[in-house]
């Protein structure tokens, strides 16, 4: 299971501040931070603690099993963000 961030995200960093395992990206200072349209949760790292849901001021974050149907795309989108990133890192290495 994981939590996922949907397109309503306003990128105000509230979730990043409370995440205990640092699984929400991109973060301030990262190369892709300014151009990112939203933040994403790394499903490989998320521990389902719910802290980000509490912190989000616009209710953009859901547990995967509670994700409204219209946001169904977000599961793959969050995972895809990290998949592409690790591909880019491998290519750069």
């Amino acid at each position: 299971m994981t939590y996922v961030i949907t397109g309503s995200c306003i990128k105000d960093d509230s979730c990043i501040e409370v995440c205990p395992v640092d699984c929400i990206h991109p973060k301030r200072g990262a190369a892709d931070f300014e151009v990112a349209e939203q933040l994403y949760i790394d499903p490989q790292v998320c521990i389902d603690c719910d802290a980000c849901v509490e912190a989000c001021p616009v209710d953009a974050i859901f547990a995967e099993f509670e994700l409204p149907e219209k946001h169904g795309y977000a599961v793959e989108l969050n995972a895809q963000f990290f998949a592409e990133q690790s591909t880019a890192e491998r290519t750069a290495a």
Partner: protein
Amino acid sequence: MSRARPRVAIVGAGPAGAFAAACLLSAHGDAEIDLVERLPTPWGLLRGGVAPDHQEIKRLEDTFDRQTLRRGCRFLGNVEVGVDVSHSELARHYTAVVYATGAQTDKSLGIPGEDRPGSWAATEFVAWYNGHPDYRGLEFDLSAKRAVVIGNGNVAADVTRILTREVGELERTDIADHALQALRESRIEEVVVLGRRGPAQAAFTSAELRELGHLDGVDLGVDSDEVELDPLSRRWLAEQGTFTARTNVKLLREFAARPARADARRRIELRFLCSPVEIRGADSVEAITMRRNEIVRTDDGALRARPLDVDLETIECGLVLRSVGYRAVPLPDVPFDERYFVLPNQKGRVLTPDGESLPGVYAVGWIKRGPTGILGTNKRDAEETVRCLVEDVRAGALPQPPNPDREQIDALLARRKPDVITVEGWRAIDGHERERGHRERRPRIKLASRDELLAEAGAGSSESATSCT
């Protein structure tokens, strides 16, 4: 008389101003902050810009309220700086003045017919459907079958959705009642959205683009030839493209491959590599003429649109919404950078035309950095400005203003603007709107004229005119 508590006026109660107030209260708990706002209501584009069918984003108002007004920050609404009170008067009453006035006008296209009746800035349409009191009286003619939206950003996506979405869905939002009524009678069947560059350069967020492709009863058309990328864009996307750009291109390919929906009531067509050259009509808008572009690489490496020497194309339409960006306007008595349309500043400290720092004057949000970024961008922007302000306070760089007491600015405003709206007035408006909304299962029903807002706030009545707390 000496006072330790800095008194700060934040001009503009939109997201940038609200984030700045919240951040300042966290950094300097005893700062006394007045949010000075031209409108009777706070939260700027959160109320008047964010689309009504994006209600979840409007929940940010609860956070703003909790972090500012509920922590002692005052609201002075219906007060226009430069009209009701001047910059120098603010400077005489506050330790610091922070401008958070945003970008209030739209960029122009510079083509013939731009000002023809029926051709509007998309931001005017947005302000109208969101119940901005200054736009209450606009009359959009929605009787033609086709509208054209110029631009490929999120405002273009918003207005396209509002024009095509089932009215029943809008009835559950806080869209202004006058807009709802006009949209009920709309005869628009198709909205054509024009992008100057290609799919890889579209400025939509993928969330907005995805939404356009999944509206109930709306077909989204995109030509499969137009989603094929030119070699330059293909290379850019592979080597430097953002995650959003790659997601957008993928979405557009999916949309192009979908069969048309037979049951669609309305249709959206996305066109790429097209620039409008003229908005035509005998009197009001009847058609738009456009030319094809190709993507070229400029000397600085950017990919730009260049006109192709081919026949022009004309589309008949009765409404044009131009959405090619916001622009800030100069403020009276403070420096303005006419090239970048911002207050000249360094990390939020406003500078004179000679590049000297102007003590006690700051900028935050779009008036500081230009109209870029999303809501949360303003939080980081506000942190930077507030860091400078707090540094200056702690360094003793901000002299005590000549009239440092709250009662002095209140007395001045009471004379100038007896109908100033305070936090109580705003609570009355907010409560009334939510209550009306609750009865009809809507988040709120907005009071959309200045008179109604002032009446509901009780502005000018004996209790509120004398007290600003």
